[in-house]
């Protein structure tokens, strides 16, 4: 029953590593990783359907196929640690322990949503849980993360900041400028690069000569590693090490979690520009099927247990949709000027 990965895929995806839980990781913890990944999958699969049915609008980007990265990373964090996001933020919210109801309500543009209907998918934020917000400007999370680390350092909180970003983001000027400063001042920030090898329709290899992006770390004098981004344990282990280092005052690291975008850039993208036949075999690397396979194979969980988790997740998402669609309210125009300025001040 174990998933067989084609030779052709392994040849192309050289950072593949088989799943193996870190020494001493408890069953509940492993199940939690599975739960969070599956919750992201179910959430974003539903979001696509809702978008297609015109129930939600704007630009929504799916975190499907990247689940292991956010979940593995955030599992290495303490609740007060911070993360910065990208335009693809749903997975980051869930991985950081966010509330799918509030997120769904936001995507429906409802007042009860995380951002009171002002932000939507692309600006989803859960600041109380340390999720500093999705952003539509590629690269803009980089200095934000370094600034967050600067604050942690100067305020002596002992917290670290994770900076999620895509391979596309690595070619923004701020990427380089931010890492340079973080390195120069030993700030407690970990750059987690979600390398799906694509930026909408542009392949990384067509715009960067060196595609082994972790190697760039050397230029800034910080550690850089590459891990199997489809493997939640591999991501967790690498991030844990970097987090410990950062907490010890030893400065930033760059972790390249390499994977492949398996779906469209945004929910309605049919990817006509891409050879989907070449993508198809990579579904064997799907982090969730692999994790499920691992749990069963190693008798960590019984099929029944996993089924129950999956059922609960389906219900959790259904409830979230029902809540957002039927129990929440549209923001009134009286709320339009709220929160442009601090302390309720309104400047029209």
């Amino acid at each position, binding site marked *: 029953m174990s998933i067989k990965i084609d030779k052709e895929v392994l040849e192309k995806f050289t950072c593949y590593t088989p799943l193996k839980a870190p020494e001493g990781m408890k069953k509940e913890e492993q199940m939690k990783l599975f739960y969070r990944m599956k919750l992201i999958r179910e959430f974003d699969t539903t979001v696509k359907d809702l978008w297609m049915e015109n129930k939600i609008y704007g630009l929504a980007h799916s975190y499907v196929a990247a689940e292991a990265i956010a979940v593995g990373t955030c599992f290495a964090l303490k609740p007060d640690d911070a993360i910065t996001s990208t335009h693809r933020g749903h997975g980051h919210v869930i991985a950081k322990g966010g509330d799918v109801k509030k997120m769904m309500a936001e995507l429906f543009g409802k007042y009860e949503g995380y*951002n009171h209907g002002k932000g939507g998918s692309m600006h989803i934020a859960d600041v109380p849980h340390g999720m500093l917000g999705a952003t539509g400007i*590629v690269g803009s999370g980089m200095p934000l993360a370094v600034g967050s680390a600067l604050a942690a350092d100067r305020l002596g909180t002992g917290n670290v900041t994770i900076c999620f970003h895509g391979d596309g983001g690595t070619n923004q000027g701020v990427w380089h400028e931010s890492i340079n400063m973080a390195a120069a001042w030993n700030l407690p920030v970990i750059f987690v690069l979600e390398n799906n090898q694509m930026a909408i*329709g542009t392949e990384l290899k067509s715009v960067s000569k060196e595609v082994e992006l972790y190697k760039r770390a050397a230029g800034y004098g910080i550690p850089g590693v590459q891990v199997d981004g489809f493997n939640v344990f591999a991501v967790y282990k690498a991030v844990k090490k970097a987090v410990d280092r950062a907490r010890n005052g030893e400065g930033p690291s760059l972790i390249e979690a390499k994977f492949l975008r398996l779906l469209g850039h945004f929910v309605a993208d049919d990817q006509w520009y891409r050879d989907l036949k070449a993508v198809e075999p990579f579904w064997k690397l799907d982090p969730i099927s692999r994790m499920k396979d691992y749990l069963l194979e190693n008798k960590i969980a019984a099929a029944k247990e996993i089924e129950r988790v999956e059922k609960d997740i389906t219900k959790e998402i259904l409830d979230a949709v029902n809540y957002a669609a039927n129990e929440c309210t549209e923001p009134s125009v009286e709320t339009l000027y709220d929160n442009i300025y601090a302390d309720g001040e309104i400047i029209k």
Partner: protein
Amino acid sequence: MRNITVRESLNEAMRQEMEIDETVIVMGCDVAIRGNPFGVTKGLLRQFGEKRVIDTPISEAAFTGMGVGAAAMGLKPIVEILYSDWITLASDQIVNMAAKMRYMFGGNIEMPLVVRAPFGAGGGNAAQHSQSFENWFNHIPGLKVVAPITPYDLKGMLITAIRDKNPVIFFEHKRAYQMKGEVPEELYTVPFGKAAIRREGKDVTIVSYSMMSIHAMEAAEELAEDGIDCEVIDLRSILPMDYETVMNSIEKTNRVVVTQEANLRGGFAADIVAEIIDRGFDLLDTAPVRVGGLNVPMPYNMGLENYVIPGKETIKKAIRKALKD
């Protein structure tokens, strides 16, 4: 004549100009293989190859700056900023380099650069994908800024922009790409600095551009049923701006409404009203009325978004205000 979409007219402008001038190149995120998300540059890669149609990394400051360098040294680059909101990233290169080099260098350089920037709100794209920054660039000596709306004007003015030896910021309204209109097959140009009178009228002048001229026309048609006769001016070109046409119209109507989609504060409409007052305060029977978006970041919720963006009804209200007394 053929009816084609805005998307097709822009595509044709680039294609035809590239056919006769091999110094014209196109660069930006996803302009080549994907032909830009709106399909505006579709097919250019196939026809002209990857040396002239270039998918860039997400490096707006650098690829716009490269456009400046290439323009200085013999190419005619058309740089695309996918959503004009991110022109902020490229602004240093546009404002401090492209706009000023000719002047700073004593006239010894050319700068035939076009920056295409899809702009405008609608569709729930929220605060970083909906803005209209035309007036920022209107403020900068050395730039030209245009925002045509009809397929005919878009084609003709894009060709003018490519041939212009100055840096041109070319604003295309994102909601207009599917709109259709008559467009000649051959190459032609539409000059900058010349407004179009879309509708003649004697009661009030409506000054508009881009999507607002569509809404102004709708408002004018509806008010015509109430016996109000509006003259609708589509500026097409923001810098240079055709004040002659505007003042001639006001001389006839003695009332003016100036519209913009951008939020009102610090906007182009304010600049236009100030200039109208300077040039012909005495021509006005009532105070000029401005129409613009509300001064908020664009909210995601589409109910709120519709409330923020001015449309036909906002313009009708402004016209009635201008007609009071």
